[in-house]
């Protein structure tokens, strides 16, 4: 199956002598030739996210000569991005990610157009943002945006070059409803909030998005040039630890709510409501709700006043080794359910983790076990290191 995205290229899309030198390794391949390179120049690709996946995708698409690359991101470059987000650099910390990415891409290839969208990709702007593009690359970090990207692609009949990662494992596919299944055919429903950890919580091997993003860029280029077998109807599963690559077969779901013959979704919906989580994976400060949260300054006041509080840190022991508070005791969240008998219901407890998300989950567990004198440290040890003790490292 060979599916050409936009063939042939427009007549007026030609290469000048500088571009012919630049792309000469492409031009001498019979699968690409001058025509394929002109298709790349004529192509318009939207990268949603300029992070771990978006970095290699955009870098390689730019180097390959994709004529118009759109970048959507709302974030700024931070030091903890640089372990994997190779489009950015130490010199661009603090800059808007889309501006940092744009400058890097134009340094690689000044013959292309970069359009930046310094926004969250939302139901309100997604259709308009995506409209001028031929293909969308999903490099997002959260379920609501993945469903949003999928639905935009189905509604606008565009291929969705999908990549997703967690720790050492990645998935790649091309969802294109006109030719095969969409993301919803494979994943009709998102997992409930909190059940699947994000990369910010669970970590990711820095090179993994490099591998997966490069595969996404490969699929995008194949689709644009119209060569090879695209990953339509297939899901590639990569395991970096085993160094294994497997492919499973996907089918269009006859009951798919958006791409079947009788769809019940015909316009964009509220994806935050659908997934029960926000359209971003910002975990700098999470809480359990006003009633259950305690801020770091409130906790410090209590310690300063000599209040008797049992502070439980539910992070993993290897996180504890990075930084911990002397008042805290470590009970990793995996151990907590088996140690509930160690809690005295008359004691005051505060539960903490890195940013407040995991501790909020554990607070619910404690409350349901009858341990109700308990608060969640909003923002976790990151907030403590930011607001109370700035000598502590932040990770």
């Amino acid at each position, binding site marked *: 199956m060979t599916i050409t995205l936009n063939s042939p290229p427009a007549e007026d899309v030609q290469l000048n002598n500088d571009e012919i030198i630049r792309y000469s390794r492409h031009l001498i391949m019979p699968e690409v030739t001058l025509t394929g390179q002109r298709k790349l120049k004529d192509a318009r690709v939207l990268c949603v*996210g300029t*992070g*771990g*996946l*978006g970095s290699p995708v955009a870098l390689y698409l730019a180097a390959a000569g994709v004529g118009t690359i759109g970048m959507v991101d709302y974030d700024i470059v931070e030091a903890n*991005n640089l372990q994997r987000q190779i489009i950015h650099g130490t010199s661009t910390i603090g800059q808007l990610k889309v501006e940092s990415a744009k400058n890097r891409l134009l340094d690689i290839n000044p013959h292309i157009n970069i359009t930046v969208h310094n926004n969250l990709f939302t139901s309100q702007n997604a259709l308009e943002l995506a409209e001028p593009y031929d293909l969308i690359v*999903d*490099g*997002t*970090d*959260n*379920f609501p945006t*993945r469903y949003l990207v999928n639905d935009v692609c189905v509604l606008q009949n565009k291929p969705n070059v999908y*990549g*997703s*990662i*967690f*720790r*050492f*494992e990645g*998935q790649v596919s091309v969802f294109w409803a006109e030719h095969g299944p969409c993301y919803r055919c*494979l*994943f*009709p*429903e*998102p*997992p409930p909030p909190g*059940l*699947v*950890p*994000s*990369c*910010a919580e*669970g970590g*990711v091997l820095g090179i993994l*998005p490099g591998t*997966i*993003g490069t595969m996404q860029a490969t699929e995008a280029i194949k689709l644009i040039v119209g060569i090879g077998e695209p990953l339509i109807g297939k*899901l590639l*599963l990569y*395991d970096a630890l*085993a160094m294994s690559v*497997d*492919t*499973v*077969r*996907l*089918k269009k*779901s006859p009951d798919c709510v958006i791409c079947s013959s009788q769809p019940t979704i015909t316009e964009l919906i509220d994806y935050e409501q659908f997934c029960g989580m926000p359209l971003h*994976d910002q975990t700098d400060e999470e809480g359990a709700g006003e009633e259950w949260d305690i801020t770091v300054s409130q906790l410090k006041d209590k310690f300063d006043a000599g209040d008797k509080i049992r502070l439980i840190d539910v992070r993993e022991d290897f996180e504890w080794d990075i930084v911990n508070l002397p008042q805290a005791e470590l009970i990793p969240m*995996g151990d907590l359910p088996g140690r509930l008998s160690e809690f005295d219901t008359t004691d005051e407890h505060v539960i903490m983790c890195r940013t407040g998300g995991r501790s909020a989950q554990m607070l619910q567990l404690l409350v349901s076990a009858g341990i109700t004198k308990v608060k969640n440290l909003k923002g976790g040890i990151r907030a403590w290191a930011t607001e109370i003790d700035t000598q502590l490292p932040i990770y």
Partner: protein
Amino acid sequence: MANIRIPTPLRTFTNGDTDITVKGNTVGEALLDLTSQYVELKQHLYNEDGKLRAFVNIFLDGDDVRHLNGENTAINAESSLRIVPSVAGGFI
């Protein structure tokens, strides 16, 4: 005895084991055996009503069992099952 490949997000609940040997003549029986070996996995694979969660995909020798006979799909000793969960990461 069939084999089930466990994806990274669920390895926390299998003591890090990646490939589990399971008994059973159907996909459902194999999963039942898996969750009896690793009890904590159960809440991640099944909902409160005992049904397989919609975001958990089970593939038998490369095919989605939803397009075969679901949990009643027959397996044999050579069968290779894998659990494919939805993961969202990539951007951050």
